[in-house]
Protein backbone atom coordinates (compact mmCIF):
# COMPACT_ATOMS: atom_id res chain seq x y z
CA UNK A 1 0.00 0.00 0.00
CA UNK A 2 2.87 2.35 0.88
CA UNK A 3 4.28 1.76 -2.59
CA UNK A 4 0.98 2.72 -4.20
CA UNK A 5 0.75 5.94 -2.20
CA UNK A 6 4.33 7.02 -2.81
CA UNK A 7 4.00 6.43 -6.57
CA UNK A 8 0.62 8.19 -6.60
CA UNK A 9 1.96 11.25 -4.79
CA UNK A 10 4.95 11.53 -7.12
CA UNK A 11 2.87 11.17 -10.29
CA UNK A 12 0.15 13.48 -8.93
CA UNK A 13 2.67 16.16 -8.01
CA UNK A 14 4.24 15.93 -11.46
CA UNK A 15 0.85 16.25 -13.18
CA UNK A 16 -0.09 19.26 -11.07
CA UNK A 17 3.32 20.87 -11.57
CA UNK A 18 3.10 20.39 -15.33
CA UNK A 19 -0.43 21.72 -15.47
CA UNK A 20 0.12 24.79 -13.31
CA UNK A 21 3.42 25.79 -14.93
CA UNK A 22 2.47 25.24 -18.57
CA UNK A 23 0.19 28.03 -19.83
CA UNK A 24 -0.94 26.01 -22.87
CA UNK A 25 -2.36 23.39 -20.47
CA UNK A 26 -3.56 25.71 -17.73
CA UNK A 27 -5.32 28.43 -19.72
CA UNK A 28 -7.68 26.34 -21.91
CA UNK A 29 -8.72 24.29 -18.88
CA UNK A 30 -9.67 27.48 -17.07
CA UNK A 31 -10.97 29.48 -20.01
CA UNK A 32 -13.37 26.99 -21.58
CA UNK A 33 -15.64 26.48 -18.55
CA UNK A 34 -15.75 30.26 -17.97
CA UNK A 35 -16.59 30.76 -21.59
CA UNK A 36 -19.42 28.20 -21.51
CA UNK A 37 -20.71 29.68 -18.28
CA UNK A 38 -20.72 33.20 -19.71
CA UNK A 39 -22.26 32.11 -23.01
CA UNK A 40 -25.00 30.00 -21.42
CA UNK A 41 -25.81 31.94 -18.26
CA UNK A 42 -25.44 35.35 -19.94
CA UNK A 43 -26.84 34.64 -23.38
CA UNK A 44 -29.73 32.45 -22.36
CA UNK A 45 -30.94 34.07 -19.13
CA UNK A 46 -34.25 34.85 -20.82
CA UNK A 47 -34.96 31.10 -20.90
CA UNK A 48 -35.88 31.58 -17.25
CA UNK A 49 -39.14 33.11 -18.56
CA UNK A 50 -40.14 30.07 -20.62
CA UNK A 51 -43.55 28.83 -19.43
CA UNK A 52 -43.06 25.86 -17.10
CA UNK A 53 -39.46 26.77 -16.23
CA UNK A 54 -39.26 27.03 -12.48
CA UNK A 55 -35.90 27.22 -10.79
CA UNK A 56 -36.04 29.22 -7.60
CA UNK A 57 -32.46 30.53 -7.55
CA UNK A 58 -32.31 31.76 -11.14
CA UNK A 59 -30.80 30.78 -14.47
CA UNK A 60 -27.21 31.61 -13.50
CA UNK A 61 -27.28 28.94 -10.76
CA UNK A 62 -29.09 26.56 -13.12
CA UNK A 63 -26.24 26.84 -15.64
CA UNK A 64 -23.53 26.96 -12.99
CA UNK A 65 -24.26 23.37 -11.97
CA UNK A 66 -23.99 22.17 -15.56
CA UNK A 67 -20.71 23.99 -16.16
CA UNK A 68 -19.33 22.76 -12.81
CA UNK A 69 -20.02 19.13 -13.75
CA UNK A 70 -18.80 19.71 -17.30
CA UNK A 71 -15.53 21.23 -16.06
CA UNK A 72 -15.08 18.28 -13.69
CA UNK A 73 -15.59 15.73 -16.46
CA UNK A 74 -13.30 17.55 -18.88
CA UNK A 75 -10.55 18.04 -16.30
CA UNK A 76 -10.52 14.25 -16.18
CA UNK A 77 -10.51 13.94 -19.96
CA UNK A 78 -7.72 16.51 -20.38
CA UNK A 79 -5.65 14.57 -17.86
CA UNK A 80 -6.12 11.61 -20.21
CA UNK A 81 -4.41 13.70 -22.90
CA UNK A 82 -1.49 14.13 -20.46
CA UNK A 83 -1.31 10.35 -20.01
CA UNK A 84 -1.11 9.91 -23.78
CA UNK A 85 1.65 12.52 -23.97
CA UNK A 86 3.57 10.52 -21.36
CA UNK A 87 3.29 7.43 -23.55
CA UNK A 88 4.20 9.29 -26.73
CA UNK A 89 7.30 10.84 -25.19
CA UNK A 90 8.42 7.57 -23.63
CA UNK A 91 8.04 8.90 -20.08
CA UNK A 92 5.36 6.33 -19.25
CA UNK A 93 7.73 3.49 -20.13
CA UNK A 94 10.33 4.83 -17.68
CA UNK A 95 7.60 5.43 -15.10
CA UNK A 96 6.42 1.84 -15.35
CA UNK A 97 9.93 0.51 -14.94
CA UNK A 98 10.50 2.71 -11.88
CA UNK A 99 7.13 2.27 -10.10
CA UNK A 100 7.10 -0.53 -7.50
CA UNK A 101 3.29 -0.71 -7.72
CA UNK A 102 1.85 0.53 -11.00
CA UNK A 103 -1.67 1.06 -9.66
CA UNK A 104 -0.12 4.10 -8.00
CA UNK A 105 0.40 5.59 -11.48
CA UNK A 106 -3.34 5.54 -12.07
CA UNK A 107 -4.02 6.97 -8.64
CA UNK A 108 -1.44 9.70 -9.28
CA UNK A 109 -3.14 10.70 -12.51
CA UNK A 110 -6.37 10.82 -10.49
CA UNK A 111 -4.76 13.23 -8.01
CA UNK A 112 -3.58 15.33 -10.97
CA UNK A 113 -7.08 15.45 -12.46
CA UNK A 114 -8.69 16.37 -9.15
CA UNK A 115 -6.13 19.12 -8.45
CA UNK A 116 -6.55 20.47 -11.94
CA UNK A 117 -10.34 20.62 -11.54
CA UNK A 118 -10.09 22.11 -8.03
CA UNK A 119 -8.49 25.25 -9.47
CA UNK A 120 -11.09 25.48 -12.26
CA UNK A 121 -13.94 25.00 -9.79
CA UNK A 122 -12.55 27.71 -7.51
CA UNK A 123 -12.24 30.24 -10.33
CA UNK A 124 -15.65 29.27 -11.74
CA UNK A 125 -17.30 29.68 -8.35
CA UNK A 126 -15.69 33.10 -7.88
CA UNK A 127 -16.86 34.21 -11.34
CA UNK A 128 -20.39 32.95 -10.63
CA UNK A 129 -20.53 34.76 -7.29
CA UNK A 130 -19.27 37.97 -8.88
CA UNK A 131 -21.98 37.54 -11.55
CA UNK A 132 -24.54 37.55 -8.74
CA UNK A 133 -25.43 33.87 -8.61
CA UNK A 134 -28.00 33.05 -5.94
CA UNK A 135 -27.40 30.03 -3.73
CA UNK A 136 -30.32 28.47 -1.87
CA UNK A 137 -28.55 25.45 -0.39
CA UNK A 138 -26.82 25.34 2.98
CA UNK A 139 -23.20 24.33 3.63
CA UNK A 140 -23.99 20.61 3.58
CA UNK A 141 -25.85 20.91 0.26
CA UNK A 142 -22.99 22.79 -1.33
CA UNK A 143 -20.45 20.31 0.02
CA UNK A 144 -22.54 17.52 -1.51
CA UNK A 145 -22.68 19.39 -4.83
CA UNK A 146 -18.88 19.71 -5.03
CA UNK A 147 -18.46 16.09 -3.90
CA UNK A 148 -20.75 14.98 -6.71
CA UNK A 149 -18.71 17.06 -9.17
CA UNK A 150 -15.50 15.51 -7.83
CA UNK A 151 -16.97 12.05 -8.51
CA UNK A 152 -17.75 13.16 -12.06
CA UNK A 153 -14.11 14.23 -12.34
CA UNK A 154 -13.01 10.73 -11.30
CA UNK A 155 -15.38 9.17 -13.85
CA UNK A 156 -13.93 11.38 -16.63
CA UNK A 157 -10.39 10.52 -15.60
CA UNK A 158 -10.97 6.76 -15.37
CA UNK A 159 -12.69 6.68 -18.76
CA UNK A 160 -9.97 8.67 -20.52
CA UNK A 161 -7.15 6.85 -18.71
CA UNK A 162 -8.56 3.53 -19.94
CA UNK A 163 -8.63 4.86 -23.51
CA UNK A 164 -5.21 6.50 -23.21
CA UNK A 165 -3.55 3.35 -21.91
CA UNK A 166 -5.08 1.19 -24.60
CA UNK A 167 -4.31 3.41 -27.59
CA UNK A 168 -1.30 5.37 -26.29
CA UNK A 169 -1.61 7.94 -29.09
CA UNK A 170 -3.14 11.40 -29.23
CA UNK A 171 -5.12 10.25 -32.26
CA UNK A 172 -7.42 8.62 -29.71
CA UNK A 173 -8.35 12.05 -28.32
CA UNK A 174 -11.81 12.06 -29.98
CA UNK A 175 -12.56 8.67 -28.38
CA UNK A 176 -11.85 10.21 -24.99
CA UNK A 177 -13.75 13.43 -25.63
CA UNK A 178 -16.74 12.59 -27.75
CA UNK A 179 -18.63 10.17 -25.46
CA UNK A 180 -18.16 12.56 -22.54
CA UNK A 181 -19.28 15.51 -24.63
CA UNK A 182 -22.33 13.66 -25.91
CA UNK A 183 -23.39 12.31 -22.52
CA UNK A 184 -23.15 15.83 -21.10
CA UNK A 185 -25.12 17.46 -23.90
CA UNK A 186 -27.76 14.72 -24.20
CA UNK A 187 -28.91 15.84 -20.78
CA UNK A 188 -31.09 18.78 -19.70
CA UNK A 189 -28.43 21.46 -20.30
CA UNK A 190 -30.60 24.49 -21.01
CA UNK A 191 -33.98 23.66 -19.47
CA UNK A 192 -35.35 21.06 -17.03
CA UNK A 193 -35.88 17.60 -18.48
CA UNK A 194 -39.68 18.04 -18.74
CA UNK A 195 -39.20 20.94 -21.17
CA UNK A 196 -36.87 19.15 -23.57
CA UNK A 197 -38.14 18.22 -27.03
CA UNK A 198 -39.67 14.71 -27.08
CA UNK A 199 -36.76 12.74 -28.57
CA UNK A 200 -34.16 14.49 -26.43
CA UNK A 201 -36.26 14.02 -23.31
CA UNK A 202 -36.42 10.27 -24.03
CA UNK A 203 -32.61 10.08 -24.30
CA UNK A 204 -32.03 12.41 -21.35
CA UNK A 205 -34.20 10.28 -19.07
CA UNK A 206 -31.95 7.27 -19.79
CA UNK A 207 -28.75 9.29 -19.36
CA UNK A 208 -27.16 9.03 -15.88
CA UNK A 209 -25.82 12.57 -16.28
CA UNK A 210 -29.42 13.81 -16.07
CA UNK A 211 -29.74 12.39 -12.58
CA UNK A 212 -26.48 14.04 -11.50
CA UNK A 213 -27.49 17.37 -13.04
CA UNK A 214 -30.90 17.31 -11.40
CA UNK A 215 -29.38 16.36 -8.05
CA UNK A 216 -26.75 19.11 -8.37
CA UNK A 217 -29.37 21.71 -9.25
CA UNK A 218 -31.58 20.64 -6.38
CA UNK A 219 -28.63 21.00 -4.02
CA UNK A 220 -27.78 24.53 -5.12
CA UNK A 221 -31.46 25.43 -4.84
CA UNK A 222 -31.57 24.08 -1.29
CA UNK A 223 -34.26 21.53 -2.11
CA UNK A 224 -32.34 18.22 -2.37
CA UNK A 225 -33.82 15.61 -4.71
CA UNK A 226 -32.50 12.47 -6.48
CA UNK A 227 -29.41 12.61 -4.24
CA UNK A 228 -29.17 8.90 -3.47
CA UNK A 229 -29.73 7.96 -7.11
CA UNK A 230 -27.12 10.45 -8.35
CA UNK A 231 -24.45 9.34 -5.90
CA UNK A 232 -25.20 5.66 -6.46
CA UNK A 233 -25.05 6.21 -10.21
CA UNK A 234 -21.73 8.05 -9.93
CA UNK A 235 -20.21 5.39 -7.68
CA UNK A 236 -21.38 2.61 -10.00
CA UNK A 237 -19.76 4.36 -12.95
CA UNK A 238 -16.57 4.80 -10.94
CA UNK A 239 -16.54 1.09 -10.17
CA UNK A 240 -17.07 0.13 -13.81
CA UNK A 241 -14.52 2.59 -15.16
CA UNK A 242 -12.00 1.58 -12.49
CA UNK A 243 -12.05 -1.90 -13.99
CA UNK A 244 -11.76 -0.33 -17.46
CA UNK A 245 -8.79 1.82 -16.43
CA UNK A 246 -6.94 -0.94 -14.53
CA UNK A 247 -7.37 -3.31 -17.46
CA UNK A 248 -6.03 -0.50 -19.68
CA UNK A 249 -3.02 -0.23 -17.40
CA UNK A 250 -2.44 -3.97 -17.71
CA UNK A 251 -2.64 -3.71 -21.51
CA UNK A 252 -0.10 -0.88 -21.47
CA UNK A 253 2.16 -2.99 -19.26
CA UNK A 254 1.80 -5.92 -21.64
CA UNK A 255 2.75 -3.62 -24.52
CA UNK A 256 5.89 -2.62 -22.67
CA UNK A 257 4.63 0.84 -21.78
CA UNK A 258 5.41 2.15 -25.24
Amino acid at each position, binding site marked *: MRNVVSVALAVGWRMLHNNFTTPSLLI*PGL*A*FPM*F*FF*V*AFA*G*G*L*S*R*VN*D*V*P*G*FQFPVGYTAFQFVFVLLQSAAFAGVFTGFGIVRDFETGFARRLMVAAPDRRGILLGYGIGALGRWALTATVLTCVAMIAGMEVGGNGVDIFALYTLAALVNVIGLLWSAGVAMRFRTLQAA*PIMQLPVF*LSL*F*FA*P*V*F*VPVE*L*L*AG*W*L*EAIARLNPVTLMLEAGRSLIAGDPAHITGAFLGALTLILLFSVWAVRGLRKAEAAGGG
Partner: protein
Amino acid sequence: MNLTSQVLHLARRSVIRTIRQPANWITPLVFPLALMAVNSGGLDAATSLPGFPTDSFIAFFLAFPFIQGSLFATVNAGVDLARDIQTGFLNRLALTPMQSAALLVGHLGGVIVMGVVQAAWYLSVGLLIGVRIEAGPLGMLVIFVLAVFIVLAFGSFGALAALRTGSTEAVHSLFPVFFVFLFISSMNLPRNLIETEWFQVAASLNPVSYLIEAIRSLVIVGWDEQALVLGFSISIGLAIVGLTLSSLSLRTRMART
Protein backbone atom coordinates in the same frame (compact mmCIF):
# COMPACT_ATOMS: atom_id res chain seq x y z
CA MET B 1 1.25 26.83 -67.31
CA ASN B 2 -1.02 29.88 -67.01
CA LEU B 3 -2.50 31.29 -63.78
CA THR B 4 -5.88 29.57 -64.18
CA SER B 5 -4.27 26.21 -64.66
CA GLN B 6 -2.00 26.76 -61.64
CA VAL B 7 -5.01 27.73 -59.53
CA LEU B 8 -6.97 24.66 -60.66
CA HIS B 9 -4.06 22.34 -59.87
CA LEU B 10 -3.62 23.75 -56.39
CA ALA B 11 -7.37 23.80 -55.68
CA ARG B 12 -7.59 20.17 -56.78
CA ARG B 13 -4.68 19.29 -54.51
CA SER B 14 -6.38 21.07 -51.63
CA VAL B 15 -9.66 19.17 -52.17
CA ILE B 16 -7.97 15.77 -52.59
CA ARG B 17 -5.94 16.40 -49.47
CA THR B 18 -9.12 17.09 -47.53
CA ILE B 19 -10.81 13.95 -48.88
CA ARG B 20 -7.81 11.85 -47.84
CA GLN B 21 -8.11 13.01 -44.23
CA PRO B 22 -11.57 11.80 -43.17
CA ALA B 23 -11.40 13.72 -39.87
CA ASN B 24 -11.17 16.93 -41.92
CA TRP B 25 -14.47 16.39 -43.70
CA ILE B 26 -16.41 14.17 -41.32
CA THR B 27 -16.09 16.63 -38.42
CA PRO B 28 -17.50 19.66 -40.30
CA LEU B 29 -20.31 17.56 -41.71
CA VAL B 30 -21.34 15.83 -38.48
CA PHE B 31 -20.40 17.96 -35.51
CA PRO B 32 -22.36 21.14 -36.36
CA LEU B 33 -25.48 19.06 -37.02
CA ALA B 34 -25.03 17.15 -33.77
CA LEU B 35 -24.81 20.43 -31.91
CA MET B 36 -27.85 21.68 -33.82
CA ALA B 37 -29.79 18.58 -32.75
CA VAL B 38 -28.81 19.00 -29.11
CA ASN B 39 -29.48 22.75 -28.99
CA SER B 40 -32.74 22.45 -30.89
CA GLY B 41 -33.97 19.72 -28.58
CA GLY B 42 -32.80 21.60 -25.50
CA LEU B 43 -34.03 25.03 -26.47
CA ASP B 44 -37.23 24.10 -28.28
CA ALA B 45 -39.18 25.50 -25.32
CA ALA B 46 -37.62 28.93 -25.99
CA THR B 47 -39.95 29.30 -29.00
CA SER B 48 -42.76 29.97 -26.53
CA LEU B 49 -41.03 33.15 -25.34
CA PRO B 50 -43.07 36.20 -26.35
CA GLY B 51 -41.51 37.76 -29.46
CA PHE B 52 -39.63 34.64 -30.59
CA PRO B 53 -39.67 34.91 -34.39
CA THR B 54 -40.66 31.33 -35.27
CA ASP B 55 -42.28 28.29 -33.71
CA SER B 56 -39.53 25.96 -34.94
CA PHE B 57 -36.23 26.15 -33.11
CA ILE B 58 -34.56 23.92 -35.70
CA ALA B 59 -35.44 26.45 -38.42
CA PHE B 60 -34.13 29.22 -36.18
CA PHE B 61 -30.90 27.33 -35.50
CA LEU B 62 -30.24 26.08 -39.04
CA ALA B 63 -27.94 29.04 -39.72
CA PHE B 64 -25.55 27.86 -37.02
CA PRO B 65 -24.07 24.82 -38.84
CA PHE B 66 -23.19 27.02 -41.82
CA ILE B 67 -21.04 29.23 -39.62
CA GLN B 68 -19.53 26.48 -37.50
CA GLY B 69 -18.85 24.34 -40.58
CA SER B 70 -17.04 27.31 -42.14
CA LEU B 71 -14.87 27.54 -39.04
CA PHE B 72 -13.94 23.88 -39.24
CA ALA B 73 -13.16 24.11 -42.95
CA THR B 74 -11.09 27.21 -42.35
CA VAL B 75 -9.01 25.79 -39.54
CA ASN B 76 -8.43 22.52 -41.37
CA ALA B 77 -7.39 24.32 -44.54
CA GLY B 78 -5.21 26.73 -42.57
CA VAL B 79 -3.51 23.78 -40.91
CA ASP B 80 -2.85 22.22 -44.33
CA LEU B 81 -1.28 25.43 -45.57
CA ALA B 82 0.84 25.74 -42.41
CA ARG B 83 1.94 22.14 -42.92
CA ASP B 84 3.03 23.06 -46.48
CA ILE B 85 5.18 25.75 -44.93
CA GLN B 86 6.57 23.49 -42.20
CA THR B 87 7.42 20.70 -44.61
CA GLY B 88 9.13 23.05 -47.07
CA PHE B 89 6.55 22.49 -49.85
CA LEU B 90 6.06 26.24 -50.15
CA ASN B 91 9.79 26.80 -50.49
CA ARG B 92 9.96 24.24 -53.27
CA LEU B 93 7.05 25.96 -55.00
CA ALA B 94 8.94 29.23 -54.75
CA LEU B 95 11.65 27.68 -56.93
CA THR B 96 9.13 27.05 -59.72
CA PRO B 97 7.61 29.62 -62.08
CA MET B 98 4.32 29.41 -60.16
CA GLN B 99 2.74 32.77 -59.40
CA SER B 100 2.22 33.59 -55.71
CA ALA B 101 -1.42 34.50 -56.28
CA ALA B 102 -2.13 30.98 -57.57
CA LEU B 103 -1.20 29.49 -54.21
CA LEU B 104 -3.61 31.68 -52.25
CA VAL B 105 -6.46 31.45 -54.75
CA GLY B 106 -5.95 27.71 -55.24
CA HIS B 107 -5.87 27.11 -51.51
CA LEU B 108 -9.01 29.19 -50.95
CA GLY B 109 -10.62 27.45 -53.93
CA GLY B 110 -10.31 24.21 -52.00
CA VAL B 111 -11.87 25.83 -48.94
CA ILE B 112 -14.75 27.13 -51.04
CA VAL B 113 -15.42 23.70 -52.57
CA MET B 114 -15.60 22.32 -49.03
CA GLY B 115 -17.91 25.19 -48.05
CA VAL B 116 -20.28 24.46 -50.94
CA VAL B 117 -20.40 20.73 -50.10
CA GLN B 118 -21.12 21.56 -46.47
CA ALA B 119 -23.82 24.09 -47.38
CA ALA B 120 -25.54 21.51 -49.60
CA TRP B 121 -25.36 18.94 -46.80
CA TYR B 122 -26.73 21.25 -44.09
CA LEU B 123 -29.50 22.51 -46.32
CA SER B 124 -30.46 18.98 -47.40
CA VAL B 125 -30.57 17.77 -43.79
CA GLY B 126 -32.61 20.85 -42.83
CA LEU B 127 -35.13 20.17 -45.59
CA LEU B 128 -35.26 16.47 -44.74
CA ILE B 129 -36.15 17.17 -41.12
CA GLY B 130 -38.93 19.47 -42.20
CA VAL B 131 -37.48 22.97 -42.20
CA ARG B 132 -39.28 25.17 -44.70
CA ILE B 133 -37.12 27.87 -46.34
CA GLU B 134 -39.38 30.92 -46.32
CA ALA B 135 -37.44 32.64 -49.12
CA GLY B 136 -38.09 29.69 -51.46
CA PRO B 137 -35.73 28.12 -54.01
CA LEU B 138 -34.13 31.47 -54.86
CA GLY B 139 -33.50 31.97 -51.17
CA MET B 140 -31.66 28.63 -51.07
CA LEU B 141 -29.44 29.85 -53.88
CA VAL B 142 -28.73 33.02 -51.92
CA ILE B 143 -27.85 30.89 -48.88
CA PHE B 144 -25.27 29.09 -51.03
CA VAL B 145 -23.77 32.35 -52.26
CA LEU B 146 -23.65 33.76 -48.75
CA ALA B 147 -22.11 30.52 -47.44
CA VAL B 148 -19.37 30.85 -50.08
CA PHE B 149 -18.59 34.43 -49.04
CA ILE B 150 -18.53 33.42 -45.38
CA VAL B 151 -16.20 30.49 -45.95
CA LEU B 152 -14.01 32.71 -48.15
CA ALA B 153 -13.88 35.37 -45.43
CA PHE B 154 -12.99 32.92 -42.66
CA GLY B 155 -10.70 30.97 -44.99
CA SER B 156 -8.70 34.08 -45.79
CA PHE B 157 -8.08 34.61 -42.07
CA GLY B 158 -7.10 30.95 -41.68
CA ALA B 159 -4.64 31.40 -44.56
CA LEU B 160 -3.37 34.61 -42.98
CA ALA B 161 -2.67 32.80 -39.69
CA ALA B 162 -0.89 30.00 -41.55
CA LEU B 163 1.20 32.37 -43.63
CA ARG B 164 2.10 34.65 -40.73
CA THR B 165 3.05 31.90 -38.30
CA GLY B 166 3.91 28.92 -40.50
CA SER B 167 2.80 26.78 -37.57
CA THR B 168 0.01 24.20 -37.49
CA GLU B 169 -0.29 24.67 -33.73
CA ALA B 170 -0.83 28.40 -34.09
CA VAL B 171 -3.60 27.81 -36.64
CA HIS B 172 -5.20 25.23 -34.34
CA SER B 173 -5.15 27.79 -31.54
CA LEU B 174 -7.31 30.07 -33.71
CA PHE B 175 -10.23 27.70 -33.33
CA PRO B 176 -11.12 28.67 -29.75
CA VAL B 177 -10.93 32.34 -30.75
CA PHE B 178 -13.39 31.77 -33.58
CA PHE B 179 -15.52 29.72 -31.19
CA VAL B 180 -15.80 32.65 -28.78
CA PHE B 181 -17.12 34.82 -31.64
CA LEU B 182 -19.63 32.11 -32.47
CA PHE B 183 -20.96 31.66 -28.95
CA ILE B 184 -21.09 35.34 -27.99
CA SER B 185 -23.52 36.01 -30.81
CA SER B 186 -27.22 35.73 -31.53
CA MET B 187 -26.88 32.02 -32.34
CA ASN B 188 -29.18 30.82 -29.53
CA LEU B 189 -31.65 33.69 -29.19
CA PRO B 190 -32.57 36.75 -31.26
CA ARG B 191 -30.63 39.80 -30.03
CA ASN B 192 -33.78 41.55 -28.83
CA LEU B 193 -34.53 38.60 -26.55
CA ILE B 194 -31.08 38.50 -24.95
CA GLU B 195 -31.74 39.76 -21.44
CA THR B 196 -28.21 40.29 -20.14
CA GLU B 197 -27.24 43.77 -21.29
CA TRP B 198 -23.49 43.28 -21.77
CA PHE B 199 -24.14 40.09 -23.73
CA GLN B 200 -26.60 41.87 -25.98
CA VAL B 201 -24.05 44.64 -26.63
CA ALA B 202 -21.29 42.08 -27.32
CA ALA B 203 -23.58 40.14 -29.67
CA SER B 204 -24.50 43.36 -31.48
CA LEU B 205 -20.82 44.28 -31.94
CA ASN B 206 -19.97 40.78 -33.09
CA PRO B 207 -19.96 40.46 -36.92
CA VAL B 208 -20.80 36.75 -36.64
CA SER B 209 -24.28 37.71 -35.34
CA TYR B 210 -25.04 39.41 -38.66
CA LEU B 211 -23.76 36.47 -40.71
CA ILE B 212 -26.04 34.14 -38.75
CA GLU B 213 -28.97 36.54 -38.98
CA ALA B 214 -28.61 36.90 -42.76
CA ILE B 215 -28.89 33.14 -43.32
CA ARG B 216 -31.57 32.85 -40.63
CA SER B 217 -33.67 35.58 -42.24
CA LEU B 218 -33.87 33.58 -45.47
CA VAL B 219 -34.98 30.51 -43.54
CA ILE B 220 -37.55 31.94 -41.15
CA VAL B 221 -38.55 35.37 -42.49
CA GLY B 222 -38.21 35.37 -46.26
CA TRP B 223 -36.55 38.39 -47.84
CA ASP B 224 -35.22 40.74 -45.18
CA GLU B 225 -33.19 43.35 -47.06
CA GLN B 226 -31.46 44.78 -44.02
CA ALA B 227 -30.28 41.40 -42.74
CA LEU B 228 -29.06 40.39 -46.19
CA VAL B 229 -27.24 43.68 -46.87
CA LEU B 230 -25.51 43.43 -43.50
CA GLY B 231 -24.63 39.74 -43.99
CA PHE B 232 -23.21 40.22 -47.47
CA SER B 233 -21.40 43.47 -46.61
CA ILE B 234 -19.74 41.95 -43.56
CA SER B 235 -18.73 38.71 -45.26
CA ILE B 236 -17.39 40.52 -48.33
CA GLY B 237 -15.66 43.13 -46.16
CA LEU B 238 -14.01 40.44 -44.03
CA ALA B 239 -12.96 38.58 -47.17
CA ILE B 240 -11.36 41.71 -48.63
CA VAL B 241 -9.45 42.46 -45.42
CA GLY B 242 -8.40 38.81 -45.01
CA LEU B 243 -7.32 38.45 -48.63
CA THR B 244 -5.35 41.69 -48.61
CA LEU B 245 -3.48 40.78 -45.45
CA SER B 246 -2.91 37.21 -46.66
CA SER B 247 -1.51 38.47 -49.98
CA LEU B 248 0.93 40.71 -48.14
CA SER B 249 2.00 37.83 -45.90
CA LEU B 250 2.34 35.51 -48.87
CA ARG B 251 4.59 38.03 -50.61
CA THR B 252 6.92 37.96 -47.62
CA ARG B 253 6.70 34.18 -47.25
CA MET B 254 7.41 33.53 -50.94
CA ALA B 255 10.28 36.03 -51.19
CA ARG B 256 12.63 34.51 -53.75
CA THR B 257 16.08 35.04 -52.38
